[in-house]
């Protein structure tokens, strides 16, 4: 199969919400007014680790306009996780809406709702807290030592594998086919590390809790996971699910940070006051008290034969999950499960994973989800091995990467938080992606040209290949409802959460393709737990593959119903009809419009609403593949790296909307480049964040961004809707290894520690001298 005969899918149709957003329509959470709205403000912990001995809110309550002050005493104590994952979540239940212990600088202490933001701020400043400051531990390796402060010493938290050693999650796995490294001609071992990184969605976390006319709680919130928000808020506050409605308006970016359920506290304030309450994080609060990427130290050891066979591979990854174990197990497992299968390993494979509590900000889901950490190590190690055996790094990869029809023991052994599923590669365009990338970057020419450079400024090209998943197999489920209107248009109701990715548009394209209509004939409503059917939400690169599958199935059911009515109208057999150009057309050439079909069904014959709901889940998670090429210039005197060109060729199966797919990849790549060159959260010796602002953290601006070129390499994934696989996350993982490898090619310096600042480059250069 291929995409040739498709009419709507694989076409760059306009993103359906784009014009409204470009015109500044009030589409986001905070763009609507609520009468009598209260403003919430939280008191954050100034200590990395402390017990709250006493908390006095009397002065705060006296501030004019203050309507409620909540502390741990006012709320039910329910251990839960803020990770917006499928139930039961594989993350430990170690979080309380408010607790009598604080575990990092920026942890919640108390919450205020007041008539004005100023009053809320003032009240927060008047809450008197008597802390018993406890010893804090900021580093993962210190946290695992005997005698380290125990961060979760409370008895009621659940699913913590080893609270005494601060281990929030662990997973070990080994395939043993003989003695380790016996066949290897060369053995390599190194560690790679990634610092605290923040998502930096431009819209901060913002939620408004209000009540409908019948007293039900409505959460209008900037989330990627509306259904998980409903479930977890119900759990944390001990209220029935039926009492909560979650509405997802347009979302100003998420990248994983909004897969986190932080809405419990604003809901609690609304319930306490009976008034609508808004909680909007400041940028600083978003940096510190929302979520981050898991900092990681990834040690890899691998053996290679002189002929290029990889004999053994061992990955030991230690993630810093911060004060709470949100996504602690799953990110850690994905750092191995999405990466190790990339290359064939002949004999032995081992994975040792730990997620460790520290008194630091809480890590969570972040685009790339562990694969960013794992691929940095794996792809740099690949480069070192190729270098040692004197093979071109591209050729070495071509020799070893996973081919069509091949599987990996890792797929079965490692899922997300549990055992995975056995699968083989059912589509791959990696070969073509590599060829395209080599052509675009002029690989052979530049490798030759840049060999033997002298002088302080050196150039080099580097490569890194990637894979990711498409949803979590046998875990992620999505559904879609389609109903037909009189004019032959359709409402498409999806639980999938478009957070700027364009999923509303591509789901409409998928349904429109089946129904033989234009994308404009689909009216999409995404994500309102009262209105749309269930979907796990926007994460794990699942929306195109899983939610797309649901949209396609629902459309097929509706198509069937349409054809049944059309068969009556045209007096033909249903089997002889098809939908095309907004009409039901028979083989003989007779046809009727969809509007006739709709009117017939609604008003004349066997009156019924043509509508259907379908759900979809998958038994496999077909990986997209990607080849990344970077050309860099290194100033060996200053240590400054300049990226001259970055080419990223991606096989995402059929791109449902090529323009949006390119945009997804461009954004992921630039986010990755920003990680590579400048981003890192910095902390003082007592765990206080030092650069919690755009000004100091510094994500790349348009002027800072090097040329980035995305090329789509079409393939057909038989298990995906119209041959599609995922596209959103994979691109973020490429820049760290691709740039590191290019820097090595340029000047011989190996970089192991992100970001690659001038100091680190100079230090690495010193080692080569």
């Amino acid at each position: 199969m291929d995409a040739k005969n498709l009419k709507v899918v694989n076409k760059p149709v306009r993103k359906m919400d784009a014009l409204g957003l470009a015109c500044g329509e009030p589409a986001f959470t905070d763009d609507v007014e609520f009468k009598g709205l209260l403003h919430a403000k939280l008191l954050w912990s100034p200590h990395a680790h402390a017990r709250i001995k006493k908390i006095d809110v009397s002065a705060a309550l006296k501030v004019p306009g203050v309507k409620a002050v909540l502390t741990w005493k006012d709320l039910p104590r329910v251990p839960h996780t803020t990770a917006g994952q499928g139930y039961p979540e594989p993350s430990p239940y170690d979080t309380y809406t408010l607790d009598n212990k604080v575990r990092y600088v920026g942890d919640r202490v108390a919450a205020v709702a007041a008539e004005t933001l100023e009053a809320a701020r003032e009240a927060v400043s008047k809450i008197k807290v008597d802390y018993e400051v406890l010893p804090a531990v900021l580093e993962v390796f210190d946290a695992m030592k005997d005698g380290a402060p125990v961060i979760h010493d409370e008895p009621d938290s659940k699913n913590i594998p080893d609270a005494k050693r601060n281990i929030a999650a662990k997973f070990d796995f080994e395939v043993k086919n003989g003695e380790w490294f016996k066949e290897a001609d060369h053995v390599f071992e190194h560690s790679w590390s990634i610092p605290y990184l923040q998502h930096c969605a431009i819209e901060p976390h913002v939620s408004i809790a209000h009540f409908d006319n019948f007293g039900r709680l409505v959460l209008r919130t900037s989330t990627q996971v509306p259904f998980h928000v409903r479930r977890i808020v119900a759990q944390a506050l001990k209220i029935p699910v039926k009492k909560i409605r979650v509405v997802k308006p347009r979302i100003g970016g998420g990248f994983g940070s909004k897969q986190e359920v932080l809405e419990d506290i604003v809901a609690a304030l609304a319930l306490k006051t009976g008034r609508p309450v808004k909680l909007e994080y400041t940028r600083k609060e978003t940096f510190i008290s929302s979520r981050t990427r898991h900092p990681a130290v990834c040690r890899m050891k691998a053996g290679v034969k002189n002929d290029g066979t990889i004999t053994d591979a061992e990955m030991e990854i230690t993630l810093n999950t911060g004060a709470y174990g949100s996504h602690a197990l799953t990110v850690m497992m994905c750092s191995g499960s999405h990466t190790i299968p990339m290359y064939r390993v002949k004999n032995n494979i081992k994975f040792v994973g730990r997620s460790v509590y520290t008194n630091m900000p809480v890590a969570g889901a972040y685009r790339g989800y562990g694969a960013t950490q794992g691929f940095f190590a794996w792809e740099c190690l690949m480069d070192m091995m190729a270098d040692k055996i004197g093979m071109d790094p591209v050729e070495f990869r071509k020799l070893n990467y996973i081919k069509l029809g091949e599987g990996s023991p890792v797929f079965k052994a490692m899922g997300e938080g549990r055992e995975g599923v056995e699968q083989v590669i059912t589509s791959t365009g990696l070969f073509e992606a590599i060829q395209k990338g080599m052509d675009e970057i002029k690989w052979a020419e530049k490798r030759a040209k840049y060999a033997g450079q002298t002088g302080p400024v050196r150039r080099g090209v580097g490569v890194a290949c990637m894979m990711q998943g498409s949803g979590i197999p046998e875990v992620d489920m999505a559904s879609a409802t389609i109903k037909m209107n009189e004019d032959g248009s359709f409402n498409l109701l999806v639980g999938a959460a478009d957070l700027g990715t364009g999923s509303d548009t591509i789901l409409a394209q998928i349904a429109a393709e089946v129904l033989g209509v234009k994308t404009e004939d689909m009216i999409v409503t995404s994500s309102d737990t009262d209105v749309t059917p269930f979907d796990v939400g926007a994460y794990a690169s699942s929306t195109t593959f899983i939610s797309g599958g649901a949209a396609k199935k629902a459309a097929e059911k509706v198509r069937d119903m349409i054809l049944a009515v059309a068969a009556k109208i045209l007096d033909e057999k249903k089997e002889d009809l098809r939908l095309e150009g907004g009409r039901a057309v028979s083989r003989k050439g007779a046809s009727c419009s969809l509007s006739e079909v709709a009117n017939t069904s609604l008003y004349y014959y066997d009156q019924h609403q043509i509508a259907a709901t379908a759900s979809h889940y998958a038994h496999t998670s077909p990986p997209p593949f990607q080849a990344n090429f970077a050309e860099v210039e290194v100033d060996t005197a200053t240590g400054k790296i300049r990226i001259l060109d970055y080419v990223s060729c991606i096989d995402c199966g059929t791109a449902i909307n090529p323009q949006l797919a390119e945009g997804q990849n461009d954004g992921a790549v630039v986010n990755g480049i920003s990680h590579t060159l400048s981003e890192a959260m910095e902390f003082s010796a007592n765990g206080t964040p030092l650069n919690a602002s755009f000004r100091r953290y510094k994500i790349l601006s348009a002027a800072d961004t090097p040329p980035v070129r995305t090329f789509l390499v079409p393939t057909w994934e038989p298990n995906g809707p119209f041959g599609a696989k995922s596209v959103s996350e994979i691109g973020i993982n490429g820049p760290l290894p691709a740039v590191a490898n290019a820097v090595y090619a340029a000047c011989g310096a190996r970089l192991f520690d992100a970001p690659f600042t001038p100091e680190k480059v100079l230090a690495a250069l010193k080692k080569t001298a």
Partner: protein
Amino acid sequence: MKKDILETKKGNFEITVTVNGELKELSVKNGEFLLDALRRHGWKGTKKGCDTGDCGSCTVILNGRAVLGCLVPAVAAHGGELTTIEGLGTVRDPHPLQEAFVEAGAVQCGFCIPGMILSSKALLDRAPRPTEAEIRKALDGNLCRCTGYVKQVEAVKNASARLAGGKRKRG
């Protein structure tokens, strides 16, 4: 000199400002910044991404210049001429820049887009045919995490060609 001085009344300044071509009398709070005042008075297209002058989501055009709404005290807009994203075009009648952003696929989450478009507008008003470097420089105060700026730069180039080509004339 007295005529040059505005005095607060009950913690508010009463200012006169032309917003999107209409003369408005607005009451702004003492200590309020233009971003908050605009949003409070219903111009929700001006976004708050950081409130510290670092992200550009609150960009508005004040007296011909693209400025940061979060750093301009609201009272300083007194007597000024202000363009917000709502004044550029509407869904029914969009500005060529708005269309160009949509067509190029430059709008992902869309939160930075109003600011990005207004910065682009200010650029094209003074340099109708900018180079790519000039576009990137003009947009360097408008942060975007979704797009990598690739399609946004393309959109400004396309809009520039369209506007300079004189096919459509807009304010």
